């Protein structure tokens, strides 16, 4: 098995992984900062290295519509997008999931307008969290490319059959060169089960996809999706384990704990921010602080049960969200807190909104967050539940 690492751009690493997964159809529309992924894939097709039907479309709406069509015929399908592109797909995203089509989509996370902004946050994918797609989030380019392969094995599992987004931070991962190890095509093919859906569009054996769901049946369709997402929890764990064993990785579970054993304070987030979060934990540990971190790999299905288990015994949790629901709070925070209500785990909980529209999150900002969490612990209560970090002074009423 090849475990040779090479330095490569994140987008290209994902394109190589997808090439190995050998999708029969790719339908995509370019948008910054995702473009390099599909550009590379289209080059593979043009050079004859990848035998896919590459469909050039005139919008993201058409891209996802083509994906729905191709996936319904039983073809393994891929697309990728960002930001406004993902929003333009919104209507079709629900169809892809409702039709139970295991499409895999790369999302290069980018902020939403207005004001127009091409830089990273999670507003786009979090904004479509209810569309019935599995959502995986990568911390590194290695994880992004591995997840792009794992996504097919998860999505196409007969107990799941749900489309899957592999989310990677725009620019911060997509445009960064770093060492990655890309499995050989044969190894990827060997890892992935062949895609043989129980139902597909086939002229020899006609079936109907997308009929009306009358009030008599509609609820059951939704219940089945809900149930399938529930099944995805175990399937994801199993696929992550099998992949880690086969390719020598340690990417297991819906979450990853970092120095949480005896931690009073736990920082929780998802995506590429976890690198600096872990570094901050290390430097605060050196100062004798009992602090740890948890990385969330899967946002859908919900990682809440695993999170609750992991934060047992901690005094304060600080959830860092790169998104905010206007009028409410960050998504990871609200969802985790919701689950805590009916559990016997009851730490103080604070939500920090960070890194919107590409604002950098250096170690100093994470230290600031840790300090605020510490203060909550000292006072035994949370004064302000949600705080925007590094706000310009004129707005910071701290």
């Amino acid at each position, binding site marked *: 098995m090849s475990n040779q*690492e090479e*330095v490569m*751009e994140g987008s290209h690493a994902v394109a190589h992984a997808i090439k190995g997964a050998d999708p029969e159809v790719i339908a995509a529309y370019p948008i910054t900062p995702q473009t390099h992924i599909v550009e590379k894939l289209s080059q593979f097709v043009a050079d004859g290295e990848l035998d896919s039907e590459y469909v050039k479309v005139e919008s993201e709406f058409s891209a996802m519509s083509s994906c729905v069509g191709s996936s319904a015929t039983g073809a393994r399908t891929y697309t990728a997008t960002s930001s406004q592109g993902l929003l333009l797909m919104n209507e079709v995203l629900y169809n892809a999931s409702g039709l139970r089509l295991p499409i895999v989509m790369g999302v290069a996370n980018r902020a939403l307008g207005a004001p127009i902004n091409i830089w990273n946050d999670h507003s786009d994918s979090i904004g479509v969290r209810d569309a019935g797609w599995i959502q995986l989030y990568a911390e590194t380019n290695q994880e992004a490319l591995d997840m792009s392969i794992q996504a097919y094995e998860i999505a196409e599992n007969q107990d799941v059959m749900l489309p899957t987004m592999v989310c990677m931070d725009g620019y911060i991962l997509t445009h*960064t*060169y*770093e*060492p990655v190890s890309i499995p050989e095509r044969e190894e990827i093919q060997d890892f992935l089960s062949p895609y043989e859906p129980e139902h597909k569009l086939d002229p020899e054996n006609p079936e109907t996809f997308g009929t009306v769901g009358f009030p008599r049946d509609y609820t059951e369709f939704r219940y089945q999706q809900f149930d399938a997402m529930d099944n995805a929890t175990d399937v994801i764990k199993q696929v992550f384990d099998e992949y880690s064993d086969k390719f020598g990785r340690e990417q297991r579970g819906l979450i990853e704990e970092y120095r949480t054993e005896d931690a009073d304070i736990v920082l929780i987030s998802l995506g590429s921010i976890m*690198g600096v979060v872990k570094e901050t934990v290390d430097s605060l540990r050196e100062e004798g602080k009992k602090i740890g971190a948890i990385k969330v790999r899967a946002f859908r299905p919900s990682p809440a049960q695993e999170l609750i288990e992991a934060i047992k015994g901690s005094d304060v949790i600080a959830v860092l969200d790169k998104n905010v629901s206007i009028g409410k709070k960050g998504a990871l925070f609200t969802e985790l807190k919701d689950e805590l209500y009916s559990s016997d785990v009851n730490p103080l909980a604070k939500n920090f909104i960070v890194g919107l529209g590409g604002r*950098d999150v*250096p170690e100093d900002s994470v230290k600031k967050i840790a300090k605020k969490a510490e203060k909550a612990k000292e006072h035994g209560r949370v004064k302000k539940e949600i705080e925007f970090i590094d706000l310009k002074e004129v707005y910071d009423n701290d």
Partner: protein
Amino acid sequence: MREIRIHGRGGQGSVTAAELLAESAFEDGLQAQAFPAFGVERRGAPVKAFARLSEEKIRRRSQIYTPNYVIIQDPTLLGTVDVTEGIQDDGLMIVNTSEDKESVDIETQADLITIDATEIALDILGKPIMNTALLGAFSGATGEVSLEAMQRRVQKRFPGKIGEKNAEVMKKAKKVVEE
């Protein structure tokens, strides 16, 4: 960990230089990362690119604020961009200019070397594309990355005559800096 910032203008290959630097360092057995200043680049406009080198796996992905090394590809940037920003006192700045270091308009505690990288590029490539010359100079001045790894990487990226000539540019620039 060592952090590097490259200043250039759109079209001068700053991003390519950062990428080649990371690739070469990795070949030498270091961990490496390279990324552009995420912006809307236009030809001729000031641009920045970054690299990190380390013995350990690199987890940090925030921007670079206190570089150990700064490479300045275009002397016309000196009046418009704060090229010294955050440079560490024991750091090193490498400037592409025909002037000697005493007459360069930079005030810094860090070490400073100048090299006429454009002249080397014009001489060997026949074009004022000086990013590879500055990489050679970086290798010579810092020893962080070997010339051989850089030469292999540039020839991998630009196969044939162009790669060969750039490898020659690197060697020449390294020699100039070491003299």
